[in-house]
Structure formats: C-alpha cells, structure tokens
C-alpha cells in the first residue's frame, strides 16, 4: 500500500466508524465499541507504519473556490506530523482499549465510541492539515468532539455546564485564531504551511499581531491563561476521555499548531507566548496542591505541563554549536519546537498513563473520585499502583524516565535564555513533585478510607493492558534513539545541555524533585483530611483562593456582566425599539387616523364647508394667489 493510501485510510477510518455508529449502531453499543476500537487500531497501525516506513509526502485537493479564494484539503506528512500522528494513534488506541473495559456498562456506549471516533478523525485532521484553514476546520471539530464527550453524562448539570464552558472558551480562542489566519492570508497571500515557509524564507515580514492572534487558538485549545478555565471542569467527562483528549492529544494540539507555524514567529510574539506559558505552569501547579478530586489534580497538572510546553516554545531559538565533519558551526535553531514537542511526547505517555490509572482507580472505587476517601489501593490494585507510580516518577522528573529528559531540555533552554523563567519553571517543578507525590501517597497508601475504596478491585485485561503499554512508553519514551530515524527532524531540535550546563541542569532537576517529593512525603500521611489545610489554613486558603478567583471571575462575568448586558440590550429592544419607537409610530398614525375619521361629523353644513374651502383653495391657486 502506498503511504498516501495508508494515510487516507488512517484518516478516514474513524470517520467511517463514526458514521456507521451514528446511523446504524445507535442501540448496539457493544458492536459500536468494537467498530470504533478497530478504527483506532487502524489509526495506530497506520501511524506507526507511516512513521517508521520513512516516507514523507504531501497531497492536496481543492475543497472550495470562490473568486480568488481557494481552500484546499491536504495532507502534509513530515516528521512533525509523523510524531504527532504516532502519539495520537498509540494513545488513542490505548484509550479505546481501556474504554472497552471502563465503559462496558454504560448505557450510551454507542454515543461514547462514536464521539471517540469523531475525535480521532478530527485530531488526525489537525495533524495532517497542510494549511491553516484546514487546521482551523479540524480545530473546531476536535472542540466539538470534546464537547460531545465532556457532555457524556449529560443528565448531570455539572457535565452540561462544563461541556458548554469548554466549547465557548475554545470559541474565544478560535475567534483570535480565525482572525490570525485571515490576517495571515492577506499578509502573505497564502495560508498553506509550505507557502508560509516559502514566503517567510523569502524575507516577508509579518507584524506580531498575526502570530499572537494565531496563538489565541493555542491558548484556547491548550488552555493557557486566561482561557484555561475550561480544562479542570472538563474532567466531568469519562476518565478515558480526559486521558485522550484533555491530557495527551487535543490539548497538545495548540503546541503542535505553534510548532507548525514556527516560521511566522517574531521575537515580541515569542516573549508573550513564553510568559503566558510560564505563568500558566506556575499557576496551575499551585492550584493543584489543594485539589481533592483525583482527576482535578491531574487536570491542573496537565495545565501546568502545557504551560511548560508553551513556555518552551516561547523560549524560542538557541544558538547551537554544531559539530560536523570536524568543524564547529554556530547556528540558530528553533529549539523551542524541539523542546516543546519532546515534552509533548513524553507528557502524552505519562499523563495518559496517569489518567488511565486514575480511571482504573475510579472504576475500582465505584466512581469515587475524592483522594481523601481512597487509600490502601496499592494492595487492592497492584498493577495500577505500579504503573501509576511509573507515571508519577516520570512527571516529577525521576532520572532516566521519560519526563526527566524532556523537562531537562526545557529547563536548559530557559536557563540559557531567561533566568527568571528558569527560576519559575524550577519552582514549578518543585511544586509538581510535591502535589504528585501527595496524590500518590493519599491514593495508594494507608488503609482504605471509605466503603468504596475497601472494595476496590483491578479492572479487566482491556484496562490493564493499556496501562502497561503506556508505562513502558513512559519509561523509554525519553530516549530518542528508540524512535530510530522516524522523527529525526524534530529530535534534532531538542536542546541538549553540554558540559557545565549539563551538570547544573541535572543538579537542579534532581534537587527540585527531591525537595518537592520529600516535603510531600513529610507533610502528607494517608488521612481523610488535608494535612496542609490543618497545618497552615492560611496558605491552603490562599492557594484555594487562587484557583477560585479565576472561576469566580469567570462566573461573575457570565452571570453579571454578560447576562446583564444581554438583558439590558433586550430590554432596550423590547421597550425602546419595538415598544416606544415602532408602537409609538403606529400609535401616531392611528391617532391621526382617528382624527381623520372624526372629521366625518355627519352634519351637512360641515361638509359644505369642506366644499367651500376646497373651492376657495383651488380658486386661489387658479388666480395665482399662491
């Protein structure tokens, strides 16, 4: 099979699956789940086959043309796309597999798997997109599938609200994204990725507004401040969905998109992006400390890690000394792309692993999500425990696990480019270790603290297999060598510390991990109350307030500003326009009409006066009195 055909197959298989499920399998959840999983398997297989097959290609086909404007659908398959597609394929397949077990008893299984298939299709669309309009189209579609899946338990008010919020906040980001694309279209005359690269290579200049507007899209999708509010709420969706969409792939699409348009970036834009990423990373990490819900902790962790990636991208280029053929070349490389994508990859593995692990826990605990009501699961669910531990180790940067390498790359980049950012990211790393260990400790150790936890049990093979698979990837994913040449173009951009830098970074990295993990181990014992809250209510309150303030602000805006403004405008419309003006004019006409009618007084004399006046007027006109 030609690579292009494989790509198309991988692209369309989930669409076909979604269509079949929607049309035929609505009431046959089981078949639907197998169909969808089969499609995911096709994607995974196709993605890996393509990635390691080595061939890179581009296809394009006109989709719409009006006047000079033409919009194409096209596949651009390079190393970056190959990497992303592989992540989507592998994690997607794992999540499908996991879902088979996790969602086995769900009444609306067909809808769920249909949604997953639509998601896979849309996500692959983003990956393949060879131009920004196409990327925008699939960008919106992943938003839709995210909406669909967050809203899976739609009878819960919180789920309904969360899905709505997710979609709308994403729309805000897309508002900027779309404007950025249109601006780019007029600035460069093209939105195709190759075209942009060509134009920029030829010396075209864009204002910072365009990359920043495009970044808005990433802010929405990758939940960067201040558009991050939707992601914690999105945990209302089924846990596998959180793993796939809200941890591993969709939220990473923003990073992927930024990497796609790296050529458009100008220094000012990068600075803004860097700071937004950095602040998000720290903020989210702080918020994570006080969370009780296992998924919420992971969600804030995801936010924090996404901030890391964005910051990495924003840190941008680095002059790299490159040794080749015995000579040292100094060249500037966009290593931000490498660092971001590298962290994206490893994060996809270990965060998906942890989410699926949490799913396993939740499943085992009969949908209890409060970590203070768990405990002792290391014995009840050993496999989950081990894999989850690997995930935690990876994220806190335990040496030689996946997260260690990618985090170090980012820290190194920050160290080289911006000390302040470096400091903040290092602090974030401390906090990350702290809250992850807290989570790990509370969930798995001690005695079960609730009825549910005491009856916890391991899920079936379909749930454990993905955990194992992802655990393996979380261990080895940081070694770029295992991927062979498949993603060489991306890996080439990973900043690698040398010499003294290497030592410093290594030291810092290990130090922050030890500090964070150690203090968590000291502070938290398995208990049903939060130790931090007990020991330092002020700090706990401040951290909680940090989280609450944004939600409160958001709610205030929605309920008080937006809704009241809408009511006001509505009032003006109903009362002033439709009421006073329109009805008023009608009333005036009506009154004049009543007046005219009242002139018919019924008296002959009055009528004769009309005749007299008429004749006199006409007479006066004829004799030239006017």
């Amino acid at each position, binding site marked *: 099979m030609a690579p292009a055909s494989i790509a198309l197959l991988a692209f369309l298989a989930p669409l076909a699956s979604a269509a079949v499920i929607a049309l035929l399998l609505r009431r046959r959840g089981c078949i639907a789940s197998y169909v969808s999983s089969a499609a995911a398997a096709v994607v995974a297989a196709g993605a890996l086959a393509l990635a390691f097959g080595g061939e890179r290609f581009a296809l394009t086909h006109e989709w*719409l043309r009006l*006047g000079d*404007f033409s919009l194409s659908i096209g596949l651009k398959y390079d190393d970056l796309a190959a990497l992303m597609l592989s992540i989507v394929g592998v994690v997607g397949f794992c999540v499908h597999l996991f879902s088979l077990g996790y969602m086995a008893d769900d009444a609306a299984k067909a809808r769920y798997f249909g949604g997953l298939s639509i998601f896979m299709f849309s996500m692959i669309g983003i990956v393949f997109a060879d131009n920004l309009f196409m990327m925008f189209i699939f960008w919106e579609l992943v938003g839709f599938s995210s909406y669909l899946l967050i809203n899976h338990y*739609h009878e819960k*008010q919180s789920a309904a609200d969360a899905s709505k919020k997710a979609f709308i906040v994403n729309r*805000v980001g897309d*508002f900027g994204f779309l404007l950025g694309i249109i601006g780019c279209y007029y600035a460069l005359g093209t939105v195709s990725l190759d075209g942009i690269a060509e134009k920029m290579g030829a010396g075209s200049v864009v204002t910072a507004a365009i990359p920043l507007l495009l970044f808005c899209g990433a802010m929405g999708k990758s939940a960067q401040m201040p558009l991050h509010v939707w992601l914690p709420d999105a945990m209302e969706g089924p846990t596998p969905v959180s793993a796939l969409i809200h941890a591993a792939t969709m939220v990473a699409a923003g990073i992927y998109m930024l990497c796609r348009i790296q050529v458009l970036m100008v220094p000012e834009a990068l600075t803004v992006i860097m700071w937004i990423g950095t602040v998000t990373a720290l903020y989210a990490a702080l918020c994570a400390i006080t969370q009780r819900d296992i998924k919420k902790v992971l969600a804030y962790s995801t936010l924090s890690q996404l901030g890391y990636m964005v910051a990495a991208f924003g840190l941008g280029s680095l002059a790299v000394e490159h040794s080749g053929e015995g000579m040292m070349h100094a060249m500037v490389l966009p290593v931000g792309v490498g660092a971001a994508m590298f962290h994206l990859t490893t994060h996809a593995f270990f965060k998906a692993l942890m989410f699926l692990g949490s799913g396993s826990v939740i499943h085992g605990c009969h949908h209890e999500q409060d970590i203070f009501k768990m405990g002792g699961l290391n014995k009840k669910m050993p496999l989950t425990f081990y894999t989850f531990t690997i995930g935690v180790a990876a994220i806190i940067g335990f040496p030689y696990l996946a997260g260690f390498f990618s985090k170090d790359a980012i820290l190194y980049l920050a160290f080289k480019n911006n000390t302040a950012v470096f400091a903040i990211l290092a602090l974030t790393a401390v906090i990350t270790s702290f809250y992850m260990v807290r989570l790990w400790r509370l969930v798995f150790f001690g005695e079960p603290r609730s009825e549910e936890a005491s009856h916890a049990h391991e899920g079936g093979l379909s749930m454990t297999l993905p955990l194992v698979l992802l655990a393996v990837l979380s261990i080895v994913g940081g070694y770029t060598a295992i991927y062979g040449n498949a993603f060489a173009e991306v890996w080439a951009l990973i900043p690698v510390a040398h010499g003294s830098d290497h030592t410093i970074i290594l030291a810092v990295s290990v130090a922050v991990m030890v500090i964070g993990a150690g203090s968590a181990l000291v502070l938290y014992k398995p208990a049903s109350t939060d130790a931090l809250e007990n020991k330092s209510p002020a700090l706990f309150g401040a951290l909680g307030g940090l989280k609450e303030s944004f939600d409160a602000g958001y709610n205030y805006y929605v309920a008080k500003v937006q809704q009241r403004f809408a009511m006001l405008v509505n009032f003006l419309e109903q009362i002033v326009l439709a009421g006073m003006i329109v009805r008023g004019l009608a009333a005036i006409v009506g009154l004049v009409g009543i007046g005219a009618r009242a002139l018919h007084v019924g008296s002959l004399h009055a009528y004769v006066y009309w005749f007299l006046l008429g004749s006199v007027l006409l007479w006066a006109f004829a004799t030239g009195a006017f």
Partner: protein
Amino acid sequence: MNTQPVDLLLLSIATPLAVALAIALGLPKRFSIKLAYVGFAVPALIAVWLWSQFPGNPGESYVFLTRYNTGLQDLGITLALGLNGISLPLYVMAGIVGLAAGLYAIQSGAERLKIYLMLLLVMQGGLMGVFASIDIFFFYFFHELALIPTFIMVGIWGGRDRSYAAMKMTIYLTAGAMLSLLGLIAIYLKSGAETFDMITLRTELMANPMAFVTQKYIFGLLMVGFGTLVSLWPLHTWAPLGYGAAPSSAAMLHAGVLKKFGLYGLIQIALPLVPAGAAHWATPLAVLGVVGNVLIIGFITIAQRDLKQMIGYSSVMHMGYAFLGIACLSTLGAGGVVLMMVAHGLSVALLFLLSTSIYHRTQTFDMTEMGGLAQKTPVLAAFFVTGTLASIGLPGLANFWGELTIYVAAWKFNPTLTVLAVAGVVISAIYGLRSAAKVFFGPPSDALNGVLAANPATDLRWSEKIPALILIVALLFIGFWPKSLSTPLDSALRALYPAVEAPATQVVSR
C-alpha cells in the same frame, strides 16, 4: 432555447400550485394529503435533478431557459424561467426545505389540515418561482405569492400573540416589499431598457451604466426595502415576533427560504446592476449588519427565554453576516452569502421543526422550564444539537463555509468590522449551546417533570425524523462537499462581478 422535453422549472412551480388549487376546489381530505406528498416531492426532486444536470462552467448565463408571454410583453414583462449559478443553490434549497416543511406539516395533524397544506403548497410554488425567475417582475411576484400564506398561517395557526404578530409582520413585510418594488421599477425605467428581463438589463447596464446619483438612490431603496424583508437592524422587530408565533412549517419556509429573497435580490440584481450605488452604501450596510444584527441582536438572543424567539433572533443575527458579505462587493463575499443562505435556510428550518417537536413534548417554549429532555428523547436531542452546531458554524456542516468565506472577504473590506463580526462566533456559541443545554441536558426541571408525568415523552417518530433527516443530510452533504454549490456559484459570480468589484473606476470613467 428550451432543450428539455418538459419545462421542469415551470413544472416545479406549477405542481404545488396545481395541487393547492385542487385542494381548494374541494378535494376530499384523504386524497388531499396524498396529493400534497406529490406537491412537495416534485419540486424537490426536480431541484435535485436539475442540480445534478447543471453544467460545469456556464458563466453568468442562465440554463434551462424558457420564456412565456403573459400579456405584458410590450411592457417588458415575460415569464422567463432559468437558473444560473447564483439561483441554483437557492432553488435547490427551496426544494429541499419545502419538502421537509411539507412532510412535517402533513404529520403535524394541524386543525384544518387541508387548508394548512394548501397554503403551504402555495408558498412552495411561490418559492420555487422566486429563484427560478429571470424576470424581475415575476421574481417579485412569486415572492409575494409565497408571502401571503405566511400571514394567514401565522394568523390562524399561530401561537402566542398571533394576531399582533401577523399584523406586524404583514405591515413590515409589505412596506419592505413596496420599497424594493419601487427600487425595481426604478431599475426598469432608469436603465433605459424598459424591461424586467434580467438578461437584457445586464447587457444594457454593462454597456451603459446608470448615472451615479441614480444608482445611489436605487441601491438605497433596495437596501432598505430588501433589508426590511431580511430583517436588517433596526427594521427587524417583526422577525422574532413573527417566528415566535408562526406555526412550524410556515416558520421553516419563511425564515428558511423566503427571507432569502431580499439577499438574493441584492446579490443577483442590485449588485450587478447598480454597482456604484452599492459601493456608496456598502459601509453603512456593513456597519448596520455587524453592529446591529450581529452584536446587538446577538446579545439580545442571549437574553431570550423562549426557545422559538431565540431561534428567531438567532436567524436575525445571522443575517448580519449576510449583509457584511454583500457589502464586501466581491465574488468571495457574495458567494459566501449564497452559501450561507443555503446553509442557514436548512439549519433554521431544522431548528424550527425540532423546536415544535420539543414543544409537543414539553408543552412550553420557555427554556427555563425545560431540561434533561435528552434522557427521554436522545434522537431529538442529537438532531437539535446538530442543528444548533450547524447554526453556530461548526465545520462539517454547511453553515461553516458561508461564514468562513464571508469573514475572509470582509477582512479585505474592513478589518475592524471583521473583528467585530467574528466576535459573533462566540456569541452564537453562547446562546446556541446554552439553549441546547437548557432544553436537553442537566436534570429535568420540576415543571417538566410535571408535564412528563402526565404525558410521557417519546422520542421522535419516523414521520418527524424523516423531514429532519432530509435537512441534516443536506447540511452534511454541503458541509463535506461545498464545491457542489461553489463551482456553479463561482462561475456565475466571476462572470457577473467584475463590474461590482471595480465600481470606483467605472464611475470615474463616465
């Protein structure tokens, strides 16, 4: 000129009218309904068939062209029928929405169903005529033919405030129609051609454009006149009221298809024939459309509690994009508007249809008294969400293309307005999703529980599903294959719009 053995266009207009006449002359109810199926299906089938037969690149010229003398040939009035790339999409849309509305009406079991169907058939005939007419007189004529039944249907089968709504609608729409009629008469006379035939007028005016001042007044008249018909802010207040009161099928056909008359008139007639006038008015039109329709009405839509009013307002809001697209004075803008009209027609019809189905289950249109309906009626919920997402411009459904192309075109016209217009995507997402959530998701309200206890809700019946599915399939088809419409459209607009895109130079050259 007619190469068809049968004049299908005439047939598509005459069939529903003939069926309506037969019903009016006292056909028994049983046969009436059977015949009504024919009356609705024939135009739809013809429309789809002609779509498939439409040549690849006809330029601006009309295909399937036929002419009949109705007695005023010497005044330049003939019944000339034909389709070009601009009218084809709308003609097809009219056929499809008509079929859906008809099927929905037949199953509705309305009181005095025969008359209801008769009026709907008259409307359908008129609608097919509007988009198939080349002669401006008949274009206007068919519009009014379709309009009259709307008033009657609102008045008789309408809901809350039907009497006031019907009256207000009638007066507003008559005023709009009269003003645009004046504008059309002005074109007829001032062109010097003294004909209503669009083909002749185009040839004539391409060679000898009218003076700028004349163009200015004519476009102004058409803008206000057509604007009222399309609910241009602040002449829109009839629309939410009327749609709120209208019975579903009438609202479907009016909001979905008939309302497009004004936009179609601007694109097919006003822009090519009075380009300099259009250029003069472009900015005010765009500002009204964006600030008035998109933003102000957008916020008003957010504040609505009544589902049907909400849909009505959202329809008004979307018209703002259309005005913006028209103001761009470009192939891209106008093409975008046509795409949007088709998509909006399908989606708003779908929403009106479903809102009535919802009403039958909840006995109320008040969204605050609903909630959680999706648990009882998953298919209805899925359909409604599809319709909502279509109307807020989700890719994969037809509406996206129109909005996207309008935005792209608008940037060239005025980036600031474009930014404001694109902000509408957020606004529409807010009210669209909010309504879906209020109706279908979350726990059911107490009021709804009461209604459901007395009257358990069942999911959509097939007779409701089929019309909805027709619309959804059309939305998806165009969403995935926009070229099916954009190719003929592009071909016609490219041939027709050079003068529109360069009106300034044209005025100078005079």
